[in-house]
């Protein structure tokens, strides 16, 4: 039985061969992709892998630390504008993307200091308000192009590779996203990630283990901001124009929908959600003007059947299956997520608080 919350120690015991095979497949697919889908579809796939990175960065907050930020668009947009400015000065690509990461990270750090004492709903509202304030500000700044934004962004050639070739832009995009994904994988499986998970599970317990929970939340927020900045920076190159839309609150909401769809407790959850939602949006916006309705219905359906997202499907199925095998008894609390081995002697959890209901020897 494998727990979905593998972030942490469980992953160390996971067999490496299937993981390596999976990554190899992804790598081969990424190389062959321009030939497979054709250059006209590449733009869609470029923005999709950017969404994968963005959603994964948001998952460090929501899944990793239960830090409900509704303002990640601010850092995504900051990265996009940073690259737009750098590109207009013909900065080399690595430097421009580094600028995006640094600017977004710095902005996230400042935000985390402003929101230092807030948690839960108050934190969510504050992040939303800060992001919207930044949006309003940028719209009024003329050197950032106001509502029209900054058009005509081109990718300067890098080490003799020119990016007018769409396949090359795809490779640049994919390599940068892969680096970002690797960083988030390491962070989520590091001692820091484990500590962040413990704060998610019970901040009071974590504090009484000596963990400065506010500082850890702030660092996680900053790292997630860097990831959003890289995603936004890549988007600027791919889209060739940056508008204030990249800072708007819907831009914060999209990755949240993606990671709810895919599964908030899984490393690959946001990636799956991002691919699915991007594909759906791409199809639905051409087919109907009511696409938001369908997206909403889909999200609702998924969350009713699989509250932990699409990746929890195996656990949901195995839970249903084992529930069918066991003569339906009184399995109440443990059955909810299907993780407790059925019939295990520790299945029943005593109500917290009192000691007088313990079974006799």
């Amino acid at each position, binding site marked *: 039985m494998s727990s979905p919350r593998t972030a942490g120690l469980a992953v160390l015991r996971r067999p490496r061969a299937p993981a390596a095979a999976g990554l190899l497949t992804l790598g081969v697919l990424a190389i062959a992709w321009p030939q497979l889908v054709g250059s006209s579809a590449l733009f869609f796939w470029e923005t999709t892998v950017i969404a994968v990175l963005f959603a994964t960065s948001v998952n460090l907050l929501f899944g990793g630390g239960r830090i409900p930020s509704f303002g990640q668009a601010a850092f995504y947009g900051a990265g996009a504008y940073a690259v737009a400015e750098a590109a207009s000065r013909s900065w080399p690509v690595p430097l421009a993307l580094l600028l995006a990461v640094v600017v977004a990270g710095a902005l996230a750090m400042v935000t985390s200091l402003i929101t230092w004492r807030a948690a839960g709903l108050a934190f969510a509202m504050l992040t939303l308000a800060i992001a919207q304030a930044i949006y309003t500000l940028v719209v009024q700044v003329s050197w950032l192009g106001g509502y029209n934004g900054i058009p005509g962004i081109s990718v300067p050639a890098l080490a003799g590779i020119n990016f007018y070739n769409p396949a090359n832009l795809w490779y640049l995009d994919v390599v940068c996203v892969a680096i970002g994904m690797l960083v988030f994988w*390491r962070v989520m499986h590091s001692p820091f990630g484990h500590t962040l998970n413990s704060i998610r599970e019970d901040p009071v317990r974590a504090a009484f283990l000596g963990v400065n929970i506010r500082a850890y939340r702030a660092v996680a927020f900053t790292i997630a901001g860097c990831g959003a900045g890289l995603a936004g920076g890549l988007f600027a190159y791919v889209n060739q124009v940056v508008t204030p839309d990249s800072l708007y609150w819907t831009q914060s909401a999209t990755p949240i929908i993606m990671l709810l769809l895919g599964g908030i407790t899984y490393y690959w959850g946001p990636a799956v959600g991002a691919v699915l939602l991007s594909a759906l949006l791409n199809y639905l916006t051409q087919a109907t003007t009511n696409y938001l309705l369908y997206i909403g219905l889909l999200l609702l359906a998924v969350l009713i059947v699989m509250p932990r997202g699409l990746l929890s499907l195996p656990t949901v199925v195995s839970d249903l299956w084992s529930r069918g095998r066991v003569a339906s008894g009184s399995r109440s609390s443990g059955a909810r997520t299907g993780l407790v081995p059925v019939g295990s002697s520790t299945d029943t959890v005593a109500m917290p608080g009192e000691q007088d209901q313990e079974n006799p020897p």
Partner: protein
Amino acid sequence: MSGDPSAVEVRGVVKRFAGNLALDDVSLVIPAGQLHAIIGPNGAGKSTLFGVIAGEHRPDRGTVWVAGRDVTRIAAHRRVRAVGVARAFQVARIFPEMSVRQNVAAAVIAANGSARQFWRVKPLRVASVVADEALERLSLVPVAGRPARALSQGDRKRLEIAMALVLRPRLLLLDEPTAGMSPEETAATVELIRGIWSLGGLTVMLTEHDMQVVFDLAQQLTVMDRGHVLCSGEPETIRGRDDVREIYLGRAHGAA
């Protein structure tokens, strides 16, 4: 200051919850290395006293000294490192979705400072080995891989003690450590606490409603009632006092 400072010194602490006086001018001195039990009826203020010592509650008046340091204004998470306080809660607080081993590993990395590392994976592997040693001591090895929320109340209590121990505390606060345990588990936990304490260098404070446990373990008792300290002393002396019998022991024995 000369000699060993007391492990805990609470001076004139008042703690009020929305008008409800949970601690009313409480003063208490606990010498270093003692195994000390706080007893008293429900609502006496025992847990609140632990909360004030550990940093969960900031007293409205008075000061709290641990190991000779005024910690009244030191945040809870800093007290863990600064003066070596570790606590287990009355209702065990654990990380429910993590495995039992991961719970203890979280405590290990919090204690050894490697929690700040966000790139290397190895410290977590080391922590899991240290965690297994602690689980061994508390006979939790058979459930090490289970999600913590699947544990019985008694096992949760022991898990929390395991997490407290890997912090290598000098002051251990155990709020009703045997609550929810079977008689066998209770006996084992009493032995465990005695074993840990007899290794030396550790002051243990515990609250307990089970008088058997209290008289088995404690060197000294403090009796609380309605936010006041009624008296402190040797178990035998306390047992003989009529006022204690009346407010606490009598009622407890009647109930049992």
